[in-house]
């Protein structure tokens, strides 16, 4: 099932449009998915990919690969990058106070989905998102 829907490329701002396009594809291919489940996984991945775009080093030279698989029970997404430095984990980030203008991305990603796992290794970062499907139909 892994890799049912896939995008790869350089982590430039245009990558965000690719993530939106991928989820339009996912929604069209799986009409039984609820709008909310798609929205939650899509928003979490926009935060994670946006984080690579903004903080990945070398800037503009980091490659990302995103795969999304839909099964009757859940949506699972795998995101990998080849950044030279480990990304901060979502667990390290508390939600900032209401007046902060930055620093919400990873905390928001973690709050949106049922499970968010991050592994930093010598060849880059790997993230796995799992969202159990709520309602909808199995398609």
């Amino acid at each position, binding site marked *: 099932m892994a890799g049912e829907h896939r995008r790869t490329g350089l982590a430039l*701002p245009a990558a*965000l449009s690719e993530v*939106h396009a991928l989820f339009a594809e996912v929604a069209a291919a799986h009409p039984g998915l609820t*709008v*909310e489940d798609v*929205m*939650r996984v899509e*928003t979490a991945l*926009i*935060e994670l990919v*946006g984080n690579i*775009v*903004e903080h990945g080093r070398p800037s503009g030279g980091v490659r990302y690969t995103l795969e999304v698989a839909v099964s009757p029970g859940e949506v699972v997404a795998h995101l990998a990058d080849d950044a030279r430095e480990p990304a901060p984990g979502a667990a390290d980030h508390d*939600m900032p106070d*209401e*007046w*902060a*203008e*930055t620093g*919400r*991305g990873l*905390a*928001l990603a973690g*709050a*949106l989905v049922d499970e968010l796992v991050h592994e930093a290794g010598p060849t880059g970062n790997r993230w796995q998102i799992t969202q159990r499907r709520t309602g909808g139909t199995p398609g």
Partner: protein
Amino acid sequence: MEITARQEAEVQVLECSGRLTMVTARSLRDAVEQALGAGPPRLVLDLGEVGFVDSSGLGALISALKRARQAGGDLRIAAVTEQVRTVLKLTNLDRVLRPYADVPGARDGW
């Protein structure tokens, strides 16, 4: 993201459409600065056509709220979509940016 400003009585309504993300957050900041320089500092952001906001967009909303208050006014948001309502709630920003159901509701009764 496209932003069109209009004045209604002593309030400026900024009608926004598109996605408010790290790519477009600057547009909102610029539009708010322009509005605060051009008219009354009571701003209503009509988000009815904004289907997606990320954390950078949320930062731009908070920045806009601060700027409006610094200018002696305030900022309200109206007609938010479900995605926007969800991210506001999960980040607790709905405590300082309470969404109004529609533009007339936000525009009246300051």
